[in-house]
């Protein structure tokens, strides 16, 4: 899944807003360990911001099981298409 997707492009501004970091860049390989402040608390804040932006609704199991930004982008892509 190396293709660039709209979801991934639109995620970067949300990440910058939630983690309060104007220089933050995200790629498909980015994980919570790569982003300062991305812990279990801010993770849900990020998910809520994404739900609002993309007008989608995650299942809590999806929120809890994401491994990296690539998986998140794929999930957003799948939910916005369905």
């Amino acid at each position, binding site marked *: 899944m190396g293709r660039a997707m709209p979801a991934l492009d639109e995620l970067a501004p949300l990440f910058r807003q939630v983690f309060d970091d104007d220089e933050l860049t995200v790629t498909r390989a980015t994980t919570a360990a790569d982003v300062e402040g991305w812990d279990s608390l801010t993770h*849900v*804040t990020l998910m809520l911001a994404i739900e609002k932006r993309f007008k989608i609704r995650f299942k809590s199991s999806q929120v*809890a099981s994401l491994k990296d930004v690539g998986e998140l982008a794929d999930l957003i892509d799948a939910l916005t298409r369905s």
Partner: protein
Amino acid sequence: MLADHTVDLGTAPFWFAALAALVVIVPIAHARARAVAIAAFDLGFACALAGWAGAPYVLAVVAACHVLAQLAARRLAVAAFAVLLAALFVVHKLPQLELPGGARGALVAIGFSYVLLRAIDMLRALAEGRHAPPALDGTIAYLVPFHMLAAGPIQAYDDFRAQPAVPAPLTTATALDGMERIASGLFKKFVIAQAIQLALLTGFAAGGAYALLEVQAYCIWVYLDFSAYSDIAVGLGILLGRATPENFARPLLARNITEFWERWHISLSQFIRRNLFVPIQLALGRRTDGAHPLATASIAIGVAFVACGLWHGLSLRFVAWGALHAAALIATNAYRHVLLKKLGKRGVRAYLARPVVRATATALTFEFIAFSLALVVYPF
């Protein structure tokens, strides 16, 4: 956390069983035959532990969970059956209740506290349609894995279903890795933990100033003893080609309580996160439109950790222990929030990088862990 270790790793039967599992299961390359062999072995081991009187109860629990799994996958009457399962847990945890002969022994022998959590994870995953209904051998291998009966870990059902039906052939390097983990666990449990127990622990009978030293020693002993079980489970998992999650990552060196729970009994922390914390925080966040993340996280933490305390034991002490940890987690979040407001991101980074800050935070975290643990076992 204070697991009631019931599989005695110091006895020949456990190691004979482990050796038999290695000899019988590892060479099987046929996926179906392998799955059946693993399930037969796991169920046989659990029944043997429970004894003649307890074996029917083991079979009943596994059968009930399997029926529930089939119903959950079809979204039928899950809630009613889940309540029944939870009721069984409460009965199991209340020592004053009279249970039919063999039932309590059977539930203790199969580590029912862990079986319950696995059952919840399985039922939730199936009810959400994440997997097809399991075959009976799959239910058995997930619920009562012989190498994880004593003290977990609690494997996520998604991870269990994701593992290949037949693992990659065992190489010399992998075998050595597995044996090293087992040896490390044995050394921790039977040399270091044993020495601490013999030299320093009195069951808090000594009292006085010595109790303060014993609080420290007891905490280290619990870590060594508990993580030794996990080392052995992980090592056996590597040798048997059965995915077994890591459960500890130097937790006593954590610099705050949040980090501690990311490193201690990791599989339990992750269970709580995916089944309690995230669903609660997500639901509250949606209700409040994400306006009060700190408050919603605090409520989610409070509920999750009081439940965690009750899982460890249905007593006021465990409720207090859970509430204390919840309070510490909430305080840590609030402190970080205040630091960020006051110092900014770069300022916080520089502050946290100072060796004296790290050392102080690590020491305070250890003392909190040690004293909260003593609260549960101290003979007041």
